[in-house]
Structures are given as structure tokens and as C-alpha cells.
């Protein structure tokens, strides 16, 4: 009984893992460093001109959710204990559908030609009863039916080697400059998981003498595979007029292939069959003979009707598309979308406001959508140039300042740190 419960709980918690392991590159777009600087910075004068002798290390971690506050999602990013009262407060504010995602990217650029990058990313859409089952447990809902559902959840963990390129062309008559940037990224699929239309209807009677579970849906998992993605972008730098720059970009567009995709679902014909976990009696001689528990678990496994299969499959990588523009007066605006469950089209706006303390510059911005609902963000720069050509630049961006201020109330948090050394 406990094994089967663990199994069901595990399925639901797997979904949570997907969320917990999510990574965001959405706010990075930095698989090629120039994309990053072009997209995320408010104006052209902040663009860091990359030199062939440059080495850059960047790390981004981010969580976001439409429904769960930072005090919960942040724990899946940074670890730590989630107090029960925080879960209770969140439950009181839950909408019927909850979505979210967590992402992290670590990247090493060598002169922008060679890039080693690890993406972990995922997104999930689930309902309020799934939250209750995972965070409160069935014991908190005795005598009630929990209809937990995960519409869609996807998790990726890939390691990529990027080979970057760039071509810049000055337009005739001094009309501006067009720059093509991109990289080709052979990649290794470390793990992939997906949950589709998973449903677990769980009823526990008031004394927990039986637990009825009706479940369906499919879970897919793969470990190992390879693929090829591309990043590409076109930047048009205007030489005159109020518009300074327009950028169109595509990131992580490609396919991954795995020959070991395991799919778990319910045996055909058992879709309407409820599994009942209930008290049962065992004779004394069987108890100490040691085989009774395994037999009971086997019986429950048969009732659960888990069917599994293996096959090869080509998977569409979770690509991101960007459209960004920089206006002389109005500032910087970016529209982006990542192909992950729970991710809504995201709009970033950064006004022409720049604050400075010594060598440090600050750029505030706001964003709507993404994994989150809305965020107040702050970008900061510090540059140190001890010699004529060499130097160090530290770039840090904090997203979701409102959540940092009120983690129990607001959603989403992200931090992006890059360290760039020019020799």
C-alpha cells in the first residue's frame, strides 16, 4: 500500500521536480554574448564590444509562477524549508489553474567562438488539487476527493557546445548596419521528462481505511540522446532617426533524438478502473515468512495497471523567439516567447533611466508574462579597466524585486550574473 502511494505521490512530485529543476534562458538570450547585450540592454551605448580575447562566464537562475509565491518557488531554486503556514496561505489564494517554471543556465564563452553551456529548464501547468496533494498530502483532505491534474509538464537538461559566428555589414549610403549573429550547437540530452494530461483522482476516507485512486495520463522519460540546435539573430542598427536598433532572434531551435524514451501510462481498458488501497489481514505465519508485503504490493501494481514502453523519438527543442527594439526616447522593449508549458508571451520594457554610483550603472525595467505575471527588474553594471585594452565587467540583473520585498505575496525571482574578462 505504501509503495503504491509512494508511486502515485512520486508521479505528482515528479511534476514538481520538473518545476524545481527548471531553468530560464528567456531573460538571457545569451547563448551568444552579443545577443545578450543587444537584447537586454537599454541602448546601444551599453553594448559591450566583444573582443576575440574575451572570456565570459555567466550564470542565471530563475523561477516564476502564475499562482505560487517566491517563498515557495524560490525554495526549489535555492533549497530550504517551506513553512506549513506559507503553504496554507498560498493554498488560500490558489487559482484553479497554476503554472510556473524554473530555469538555470551556466555558460562559458571563449572569445564568443566557443561556448559551453548547460541548460536546465522546464515548465508546468497543473490545477489547484495537484498543489494540495503535493504540498498538503492526502491526509489533509480526509473524506474529500482531490482531482489532481497536470495538463502538461516538460523538463529538459542539456549540455551544449556552441560554435559561434558573426557577420556584420554596413549598409549603403550610411543607412546603418546589419549584423548577423548565431551559433550552431551540437548538444547532449542529459535528461528529458514530460507529463501529458496526467490525472489522479484521490479519495481518502475519513479514517484513511481506504484510498481510492483513479488515474490516467502519460509520463515520458528519457536519459541520453543528442541533438543539434541553432541560435541566430539579426540586429539592425540605425544610423539616424529615433529608432536605434531592432533585433529579431531565434534561440535553441532544433531537434534532439533519443532512442530510449520510456512512456508510462495505464493499460488500455483500465482507464475507468479505480485502484483501492485498503486495510487487509495477513496470517501470522505469513507475516514473519516475509512474503506478504511483496504480494500485496504486486496486487496493487496489477490494479494500478502501469504499462510502459520504449521507443525512439525526435523531440523539438524548447526554442525561444525574440523581437526587440530600442528607441532613442522611449527606451528598450522586447517581446519574447519560449516554447514551454506554463510560459506566456513576455514583454520587457526598460525606460531611458540610468542611475549611477561611481563605476556602477543601474537600469530599472518591468516585465509582463513569462513564467510569471509581472516583475520589477534592475540591471547593474560595473566596469574596471586597469589597462588600455584589458578590463573586467560585472553584469548583474535581478528580476522580481517585488517578490524579494514580499516573498509570500508575489511570484517570480531571477538573478543573472556575468563576469567578462578582456585580456
Amino acid at each position, binding site marked *: 500500500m505504501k509503495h503504491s502511494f509512494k508511486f502515485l505521490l512520486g508521479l505528482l512530485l515528479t511534476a514538481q521536480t520538473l518545476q524545481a529543476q527548471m531553468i530560464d534562458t528567456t531573460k538571457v538570450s545569451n547563448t551568444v554574448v552579443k545577443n545578450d547585450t543587444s537584447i537586454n540592454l537599454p541602448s546601444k551605448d551599453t553594448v559591450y564590444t566583444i573582443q576575440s580575447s574575451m572570456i565570459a562566464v555567466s550564470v542565471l537562475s530563475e523561477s516564476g509562477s502564475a499562482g505560487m509565491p517566491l517563498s515557495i518557488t524560490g525554495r526549489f531554486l535555492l533549497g530550504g524549508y517551506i513553512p506549513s503556514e506559507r503553504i496554507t496561505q498560498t493554498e488560500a489564494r490558489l487559482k484553479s489553474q497554476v503554472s510556473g517554471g524554473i530555469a538555470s543556465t551556466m555558460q562559458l564563452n571563449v572569445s564568443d567562438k566557443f561556448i559551453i553551456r548547460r541548460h536546465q529548464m522546464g515548465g508546468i501547468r497543473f490545477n489547484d488539487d495537484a498543489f494540495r496533494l503535493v504540498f498538503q498530502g492526502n491526509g489533509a483532505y480526509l473524506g474529500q476527493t482531490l482531482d489532481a491534474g497536470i495538463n502538461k509538464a516538460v523538463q529538459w537538461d542539456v549540455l551544449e557546445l556552441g560554435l559561434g559566428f558573426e557577420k556584420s555589414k554596413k549598409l549603403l549610403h550610411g543607412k546603418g548596419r546589419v549584423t548577423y549573429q548565431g551559433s550552431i550547437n551540437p548538444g547532449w540530452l542529459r535528461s528529458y521528462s514530460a507529463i501529458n494530461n496526467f490525472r489522479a483522482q484521490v479519495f481518502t476516507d475519513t479514517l484513511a481505511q481506504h*484510498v481510492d485512486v483513479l488515474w490516467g495520463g502519460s509520463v515520458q522519460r528519457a536519459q541520453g540522446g543528442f541533438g543539434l540546435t541553432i541560435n541566430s539573430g539579426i540586429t539592425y542598427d540605425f544610423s539616424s532617426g529615433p529608432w536605434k536598433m531592432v533585433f529579431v532572434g531565434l534561440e535553441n531551435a532544433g531537434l534532439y533524438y533519443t532512442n530510449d524514451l520510456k512512456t508510462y501510462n495505464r493499460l488500455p481498458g483500465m482507464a475507468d478502473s479505480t485502484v483501492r488501497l*485498503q486495510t*487487509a489481514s495477513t496470517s501470522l505465519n505469513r507475516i514473519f515468512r516475509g512474503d506478504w508485503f511483496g504480494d500485496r504490493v504486486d496486487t496493487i501494481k496489477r490494479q494500478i495497471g502501469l504499462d510502459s514502453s520504449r521507443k525512439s523519438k525526435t523531440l523539438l527543442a524548447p526554442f525561444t523567439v525574440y523581437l526587440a527594439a530600442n528607441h532613442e526616447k522611449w527606451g528598450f522593449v522586447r517581446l519574447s516567447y519560449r516554447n514551454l508549458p506554463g510560459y506566456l508571451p513576455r514583454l520587457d520594457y526598460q525606460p531611458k533611466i540610468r542611475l549611477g554610483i561611481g563605476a556602477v550603472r543601474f537600469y530599472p525595467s518591468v516585465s509582463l508574462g513569462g513564467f510569471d505575471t509581472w516583475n520589477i527588474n534592475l540591471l547593474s553594471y560595473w566596469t574596471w579597466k586597469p589597462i588600455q585594452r584589458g578590463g573586467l565587467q560585472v553584469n548583474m540583473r535581478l528580476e522580481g524585486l517585488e517578490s524579494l520585498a514580499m516573498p509570500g505575496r508575489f511570484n517570480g525571482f531571477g538573478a543573472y550574473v556575468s563576469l567578462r574578462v578582456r585580456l
Partner: protein
Amino acid sequence: MALTTVACSRKTARWDNNVAVPLFSTEMTLNDVDRRFLVNNASDSGYTLIYDNLVYNARSLRVTAPDTSLNTAFTLRRLKLSDRSIVQRITLAQINPTFRLLDGQTIGVPAQNQTNLSPVDIDASAFFETATLDSGFLDISINNELPVKVSLLVFELQNASDGSVVAKDSFLNINQGSSATKSISLRNKTVNKGLKGVIRHLITEASNGPVLINASKGVEVTLTVRNLRPRDAIAAFPNQNVIEQDEALVLDMGGPQVKFFKVKQGWLRLKVESTIQENMTMVLKIPSASLNGVPLERVVKMPGARPGATERKEETVDMSGYLLDYRGRDPNVKDTVNTFHQIMIVSLDSSGRKVQVTLNDSLRIYYALTDLLPEYATGYMGQTLNNSVGKAPFVLFKGADGNIVFKDFKASVLVKNSIGAEGRVRVKSLESENIFSGNKVKLSASPLNNDVIIGPAPFNYGETTDKQVVLDGSNSNIKAFVENLPQFIHYDIDIETNPNGNVSNWKDFVFDNSSADIYLRLEAPVSFTVGGLNLRDTQGIEAASIPQVQRVKTATVIFDVENDYPFEVDMAFSLLDQYGNSLGDVSVYPGTIMAGKTTPTGEPLAASRTILRANIPRERIESLRKAHAVAIKARVVGNGTQQKIYNTYKLKVKTSLQAEYEAQF
């Protein structure tokens, strides 16, 4: 590598959730009595032990509905196509090009006699693409628009593709402005959408003086198809029912004549496979099966199959709670038994697409009412006579070989009937066997020389009609029989149902647990030592199987106890390791179970229910982790007066665990 290492170092998120899982259940009866405390001291007896040992259990009247199934591949019995008409004109210019030059002039037209005029293309795509017809008619209607009378017109219709003749007929004497119609059977003919109309022979009379020549007018041919039943066609089929069944199936119930059958458990399984390229709908109605008065009806929609492929649909319906009426199609007209009414209609749903459907297309339908178990069934259960010879364990003296001697006991043969039918029991032989001594004692009892007639049970679940035959020293050798301390009782018994036939007028019934049970009842005074009457049991819990049991912060074991005993019962629990060694007692609150209620004769009437809770604090979680079993001790607390204790008394214990568990991710 460094990236991987850093990425894997994410710390886990932790939170507490409340897990509730069922553990075990058990029933403690006198079979679980701790015999260390059972002594023979009749003079100081506080209890009268009433021990009912089941000798024979007759479940021969168990009614099960046979699986009602259909597994057949239907081919379509009939197809129909829409009645439609097309009109084609063969102009005067086409009949004789000379008239093209005279168009608009008024002249006298001489008599004409022409053969094998040029064919005229006729587009019949409004009918179908192609069809081979089992039956149907083509009406050819010739309307004479010529300015002269047609004496003879021989019209032939050909398939343009191969020139095969579809229809040919002659029309005589069609006056100017008149028409004539001929019907032609299309049976066994293949007709394509591309047709050619040929006037094989045309004879017209001369005009009565000059007439106006209109070259665009001529002979208007109207082709009408009707009542088409194709064997094979590529066409846009209209909506139609292709299978209609309305049947009353007579089932073999193995003897009983059943009127109603309430389903406790069972399934309707439906599987439909279709090669038909048009959308289909299967409606299965079972008027004989209803839930809350609503007859069972399932509608299965099948999309059109791709050419050469098979479309499949499966459904499973839980039949629990359905009432099956076996009285036939219309009980008001003919009230019968064991008869099941079902209706199946398969219809072709026109999509408007032109698809190929043939009478050879198959529709495989499998449906079955399977694994039906009754909550109850009513009707006439039949007259059955069963003789049974065998042996039954006698548990009271199991393991005893002479140390226990009951004094002043009473014995009886007790027949309990929970079947809703009259019964007759004849105990032909009873023999007690002590397997340790090898002794066998055959019961000689004059009251058992006669039949025991027992009436039907009341129509209430679990209720019985009882008949008791008392045995004593004056009418039997029961004392020697019992004092043989048998472990087995050998029997030879006849049981007959409805010995007087259908006296209930189809009002017999059986529940799922109905049976005729024969007990040997012993009533004996017994007493217990200071420890009282103690019942013991052990049940497995395998707490070690809880994943990461150290994450359990606190736990509460809940014991739900139902007590039949008319005494309070003190409960105690302790955890045992895998070798059966005690890991310590578990304190429960409250520790005492309330007494149950009994009938005036002391038989169980209503159990009391008490919920006990045992809180296991964090410091004792380790012992829970090591636990493989729970030892249960129940001490029946007497009230100092003589009490009857039936071995049918039960102490039911259901146990569950609620734990605060630290989840991690």
C-alpha cells in the same frame, strides 16, 4: 564538467505534508482466544461459551448471470443511395447538323430516319462516382421538343469508360411537346458517373407545313435513379441505418428462473471495429438494464476508416448498481424469465464526402456483460437436491488432545437459511474424528432421523431463518461425540431447495452471500484465570517500507474497533521487529472499547464502535521504522455474572496511519 558539478549542487526544497495510508484490518474471534488463560472450571464459570462450528455451507443457489455477449462481424445488409434526377438535352443540331444552318427559319421539315447518332456526354456525378447495384431503377423520360412527332426513338445509355451498356429502350409515338417514360432495372449493373447517351434510331414524321426551326431544342432526356441498393459504390451516401436488431435473448441460468438481477459487480465491455469509410454511429440500448430507472444506452461514434484501415473504439461501463430485468421484451404482454432485451442500431452518418462503401465492408462488434455478480436476484430458484459428503474442521479443539473436558455442555444442530426459498435438510451422518488419538465417534441422534424443513429467509441482507435441533443424552450419543475432542467432523448431508416446488410464485430470492449453513452448536460453561478472556492477533505493517522513514516527524496510528462482545474490551498494542521481538508498547487512547449490543438470547445484534489513537512521537519513530508487525491484545472485561459468549462474536480492527512527512525535492 564544472558546469555539471555546479548544477547538481542545488539544495533540496523541503516541506511537511500529511500522508494518510491504510495499514491492516483483522477480526478477532474466539478462535483467537489465548488458550493459556482458558481453564476448565465449570463450577466457577463466569461465561457460557456458545460455539457454532460450521459443518456445511451450501452455496449451491448462488445465481450468476451468464456473460451476455455478442462477438460478430457484420457486413452491411443494405445500403441505399439517394433518389436523384439529371436532365440532358440532345438538340436538333446534334441530331442533324443541317438544322444548324436553318436555325430561326420557318420551313417544312421532311420525315427523318436516322441511326446511330453521335453520342452525347452525360455527367451523372450527381448520382455517384460509380456503383454496382443490387437493385434499383433508372427512369428514362424523353420529352419531345422537336417541331415534329417522334415515331420511334431508341435510346441507349453507356458507361463512357468502357462502352458497356447500362440501359437501352425504345420509345414510340411521342407527339410534339409530349413525353414518355420507361423504367429500366439496374440490377447487377455497374454504372459510372461518366455516361454517354446515344440515340440508336430516330424516326420522325414530316411536319404539317412550315415550322419554326430552333436548333437548340431537341429531345430532353431526364434520367432518374430511384430505390438504388448498391453492393459497392463510391458515392456520397445519405444517412441510413445499416443494422437494426431488436432481440430478446433467452439465457441459460443453469436452473433458476430469474425475474430480476441487481448487479453488485460487473462490466459492460464494448469494442467496435469498422472498415467502413463513412462515419458510423452504433447505438446499443439495453432496456433490460437500468440504473435508477434509466435504461442503459451507449452511443459509440466511429469516424470513417481510412481506405484499407480499420477504425477501433473501446468502452467499459461499470454495471454496479444496475437492475437487470429478465422478464422479457415487454413484461406487460408476456411476463417471462431469463430473457434479456437488447436493441442495436448502427447508422451511417453522411459526411457528404464521396467514399467507397460496399456490402462487404465489415463492422465487428463485440459487446459483453461480463463478470456479473448479484447483489440479489429474484425469481424461482428451482428445485435442487444436493448430497454432500465431506469433512469440516472443528476449530475449538484444534491442538487439544484430551487436556480439556467440557462438562454440562449442550449441543444442537443449527440450520441457518439466508436464502429466500424453502429448504429441506437431511443429516444422514455425522462423525467426529480426533486425529491425535485416531478415534472416530459416529453421532446417533433420533431427532436427525427426520427431515428438517426450514422456511425462507426474510428479504433483508444478512438475515436468516433458523431451525435448531437439540441433542442431549436422552436422544443421542452427543456426549461421546463431543468428548472425542474432534478436529474434524465428517458429514453426509442432503439439502434440497423448494422441496414443494414454486410455492412462492417466483418470489424466491438470493443475496450474494445467501446460503444454507449447518452448524454444530456447543454451549458450555467456561471460566478464565485472572487474566480474563484474552484475544490475541498479530498483523504486519512493514513500516520500513515507507520511503525515507526518518523523514516521518510524527505519526498517529488510528485503530477503528467494532466490538460485538457484550462486554467492554481493553485493547493493548505493541510493535514487533522482524523476529517477533517486542519493540515496546504503543499507548492508545481511549484504551477501552465499549460493549456491543446483543439479542435477548445473547447473539450479536449491534457492534459498538470506538476509535483509538496512538500518537508516536518523533523519538519513537525509530521503533516504528524497525516494526514489522503489531501485536494486538484484547482483554474481554466480564461483569461478574454468567454471560454467554458466542464464537460468532467479532472484534473488528481496522488500522490506518497518518504521518507528518517531510517531502523533499
